[in-house]
């Protein structure tokens, strides 16, 4: 082989899929952290603001973490798009006239669409909250950003809330296939435990999707 095995890996279908899988699982991990943080909204405005302030106070380290997260996201998105574009070429000139899916599910077929929805969501999410209106508050004598107020004000809009619920339904759908699929791609499929991986994927999708959507609705009800 002219190219080395490792170079070959990063060009091959399996190698690129495994990168999509591992970055996908990393993003799943991130969502758990994010959701846990969001739960502080339910505790009190101070609890949430202190948490946000601690993250902001990380300074340069936060930028490094954010850059890492952005890199993981871009690898996931870029490779998945490339693989999907290749797949669009691989069924030949004619589309099959009749189709009866037996292994495919609604979630597995809509992965590229739910993925793009999440990309649009992510951009709007960053604009409206992270880079949203900047308020200040004082907790225990420390001046900090009042991200709680930004959040509650944002979710006053029923349209914004509805969009979040829809986007989180897409996230649930995306991860309901993606979670177990990543395990299969990494080769972690064995008759002994794979059924439980699939179950865990479904539980993950429901908990994360319903968790984020539920908090958006809670914020909406709190704000109006």
């Amino acid at each position, binding site marked *: 082989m002219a190219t080395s095995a490792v170079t070959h890996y990063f060009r091959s279908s399996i190698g690129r899929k495994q990168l999509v899988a591992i970055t996908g699982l990393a993003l799943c991990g991130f969502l758990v952290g994010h959701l846990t943080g969001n739960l502080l909204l339910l505790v009190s405005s101070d609890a949430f603001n202190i948490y946000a302030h601690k993250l902001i106070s990380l300074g340069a380290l936060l930028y490094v973490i954010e850059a890492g997260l952005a890199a993981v996201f871009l690898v996931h998105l870029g490779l998945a798009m490339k693989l999907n574009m290749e797949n669009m070429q691989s069924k030949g000139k004619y589309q099959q*006239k009749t189709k009866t899916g037996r292994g495919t599910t609604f979630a597995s077929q809509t992965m590229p669409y739910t993925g793009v929805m999440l990309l649009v969501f992510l951009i709007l999410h960053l604009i409206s909250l992270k880079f949203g209106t900047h308020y200040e508050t004082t907790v225990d004598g420390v001046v900090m950003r009042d991200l709680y107020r930004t959040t509650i004000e944002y979710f006053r809009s029923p349209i914004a809330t509805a969009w979040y619920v829809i986007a989180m339904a897409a996230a649930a759908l995306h991860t309901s296939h993606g979670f177990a699929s990543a395990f299969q791609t990494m080769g972690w499929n064995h008759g002994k435990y794979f059924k439980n991986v699939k179950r865990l994927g479904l539980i993950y999708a429901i908990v994360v999707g319903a968790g984020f959507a539920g908090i958006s609705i809670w914020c909406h009800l709190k704000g109006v």
Partner: protein
Amino acid sequence: MSSDNTFSLNLKIWRQKGANAEGKLVDYHVDHVSPDMSFLEMIDVLNEQLVRKGEDPIAFDHDCREGICGMCSMMIDGKAHGGYKNTTTCQVHMRLYKNGDTIVVEPFRASAFPIVKDLAVDRSAIDKVMIKGGYISANTGNAQDGNSILIPKPIADEAMDAAACIGCGACVASCPNGSGMLFMGAKISQLALLPQGQPEAPQRALNMVHEHDTLGFGNCTNHAECEATCPKGISIEHIARMNREYIKAAFTYHEKTRSE
């Protein structure tokens, strides 16, 4: 022999004169279909009718007609081999259909399987992948005592399940991405499970996957449509084993040259 129980069918069959010709579904009506006929025999009957009328018979692949050669590639009502559990097209019997049914018959659709004519496709891409390592080339000498290489029964069974692949290409045709991972995974997995296959396992994984990717097969996205379709009931666990074999080979295997 009474032919009282014969019936009639309406068929929509893909007709395409050659690889680059335009194709379309053409309506046919076939009488005297016996419930004891196989699907292929039913097409034989139709072809006889067409020949008698001076028309071009429908080209389709077939060989053993007993479910082991994997030649009878066609999509019946959108499902490879008709979609009956563990069944190839030649083993689909007309008793599964009733008088007046309309059946849509199309060729396997995949870029890696260009259409030759009508329902016949060129599945040589499967052989090309196989040539890159779907075998053992180690010189084994004379036949050894059967018990000199011990293989646990569960491992032997699992290797046998993978070895059941007949290379029919139904996995590729049913895959929404036209990927050949189930067929390739079955072979890589089968040989990786057995001591005789292990010495060449890394080269095999690297070379076969590389060939697969260059032949126009798509990328697997774990729909598992292949597993549901496979006439030999091969599990996607073999794809997972191939994925493990492949990543292991990519990061640990390197060919040492003696030129240094």
